[in-house]
């Protein structure tokens, strides 16, 4: 088997390399399709990654949320009493409220009205698992003081530079003067350009129409040793149906599911990937079928010499695999640079991952083999009986 492999003339490679210009066009086409797939999948991953970041950084085992909540920017509210009721359940160690709302504020740099997500909580409690925030959250106890997300999308560069040097910046929101006294890192998402952290008191002063008794999220910590799933099940029994109980993993999954299924964005990226795949199939098919057509006479000669049909199929699939591998190389290198560009432009977390590279390579291989399979139909024209 191995020796017959080594005996074999690498006809596919010789055919491809004999016409370098045609090969280059083919590789450019495959690389193009790969880059498109990488960009679509990259944006999709960053959509899921960025939009679940708030959910992932919550310091909670179990999360209570209103049944009307859609996503992390649109959480709706439920009664704070449910949080107190939750503490009656055995295994619940701590219950913390979180207020969240979209706020219109003046960008401290441009003085233009912009939207930002404001989150309010008790500074005495570590509501988020963000060490940088936890270190600074004592200053939030001062009235109208906020911490600002340095990875926000928008023109904040100078303001952030100023804050990095330790200076304070003042701006306005809802007719009040706000003082930014520090920076945290959370990041923009498809739902919000960035976030502001404030104490619950500041939050309620900025948004006087929000009722202190209506909270956005209830964050529960279970006692050490308690089983999270069991506690969650007990909570579901204990609490009325005007509040939903999720473990943190379920909450993250719910957020991702919203962007994947209910928002049009997730679908757009999936479709974009599929389109890129089809474009790739068409390009590779064109190249392979042209190649088969150009060599029909020679193939018929080989058949007359006693080569089997499957030998010729092997030549086409050899070409398909070579095209997939060679086309993938530029196709995986280019997106690394493009990801960096996109990450800078959108403040979204986009980077190459091994998993995605593997996935796209698999798709490229599939794309080329599919095209090869269609191109083999042309081989029927290679009839040795027509040779004489």
């Amino acid at each position, binding site marked *: 088997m191995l020796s017959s492999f080594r005996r074999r003339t690498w006809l596919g490679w010789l055919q491809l390399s004999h016409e370098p210009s045609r090969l280059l066009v083919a590789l450019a086409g495959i690389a193009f399709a790969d880059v498109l797939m990488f960009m679509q999948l990259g944006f999709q991953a960053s959509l899921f990654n960025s939009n679940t970041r708030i959910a992932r950084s919550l310091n909670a085992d179990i999360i209570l949320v209103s049944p009307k909540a859609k996503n992390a920017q649109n959480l709706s509210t439920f009664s704070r009493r449910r949080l107190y009721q939750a503490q009656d359940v055995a295994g619940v160690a701590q219950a913390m409220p979180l207020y969240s709302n979209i706020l219109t504020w003046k960008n401290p740099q441009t003085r233009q009205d912009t939207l930002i997500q404001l989150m309010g909580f008790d500074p005495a409690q570590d509501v988020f698992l963000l060490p940088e925030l936890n270190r600074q959250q004592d200053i939030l106890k001062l009235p109208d003081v906020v911490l600002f997300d340095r990875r926000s999308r928008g023109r904040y560069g100078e303001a952030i530079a100023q804050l990095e040097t330790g200076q304070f910046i003042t701006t306005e929101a809802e007719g009040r003067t706000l003082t930014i006294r520090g920076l945290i890192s959370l990041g923009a998402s498809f739902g919000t350009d960035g976030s502001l952290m404030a104490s619950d008191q500041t939050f309620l002063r900025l948004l006087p129409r929000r009722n202190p008794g209506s909270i956005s999220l209830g964050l529960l910590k279970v006692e050490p040793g308690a089983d999270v799933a069991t506690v969650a099940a007990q909570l579901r029994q204990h609490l009325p149906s005007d509040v939903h109980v999720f473990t943190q993993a379920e909450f993250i999954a719910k957020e991702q599911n919203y962007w994947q299924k209910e928002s049009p964005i997730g679908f757009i990226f999936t479709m974009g990937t599929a389109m890129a795949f089809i474009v790739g199939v068409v390009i590779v098919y064109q190249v392979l079928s042209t190649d088969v057509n150009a060599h029909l006479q020679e193939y018929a*000669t*080989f058949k007359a010499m006693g080569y089997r049909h499957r030998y010729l199929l092997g030549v086409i699939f050899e070409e398909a695999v070579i095209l997939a591998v060679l086309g993938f190389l530029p196709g995986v290198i280019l997106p690394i640079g493009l990801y960096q560009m996109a990450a800078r432009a959108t403040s979204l977390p986009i980077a190459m991952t091994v998993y995605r590279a593997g996935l796209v390579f698999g798709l490229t291989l599939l794309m080329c083999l599919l095209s090869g399979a269609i191109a083999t139909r042309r081989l029927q024209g290679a009839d040795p009986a027509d040779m*004489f």
Partner: protein
Amino acid sequence: MPIQETQTNPQTEAQTVIAIAHLAHYFGTGELRKQVLYDIHLTISAGEIVIMTGPSGSGKTTLLTLMGGLRSVQTGSLQFLGVELCGANADQLVYIRRHIGYIFQAHNLHGSLTALQNVRMGLELHPQYTIAEMRDRAIHALEAVGLGDRLDYYPANLSGGQKQRVAIARALVSQPKLLLADEPTAALDRQSGRDVVTLMQHLAQEQGCTILLVTHDNRILDVADRIVAMEDGRLLIGENRE
């Protein structure tokens, strides 16, 4: 699937390379069915050089494709080295083809392969050769046709006569028992045509290979041991030149 060689006595059976009896062939089906070969009888012995002539449309090419296992035999009997081709399955036809050398009107060399690689393709089908042997034999075959200094040339860089010589090397490198040639000189000038035929004759004699050559070219008839003529699908009695 290997074929049962029905040679009971190699000494006498090997004498006959091709034995054709009552061979007829039809193209098309139903109303359009048209007979192209009528009751062909032909026996070719080992080492013979037979030239087949006849006007176009007389059925020469059809007969050639049937003998080469490129078309299925419909009725009658056609034996190649004692193997019956009538009713042979696809595997058997492939097996037959591997033991026949073909030379076509056009050289049909693969443009992406060098002369050496093209000749090597004629050996790759025969697993008994090692990689080194394949190379040696291919080089030897090209030297024998006078192209020892053109091993790594692509067909595009060879003249018409040189290409046809590479094709001869490819056809003969695996030492087939039968060489089928269809108008091998049609695309060549007088001198290269002459050279090609002389070369074929010389090499075939060296290897004890039988040649069946279809041609319109009167200039090369003298190489034949026997000339047979086809007309309207019937084989006319051939003259024996010996």
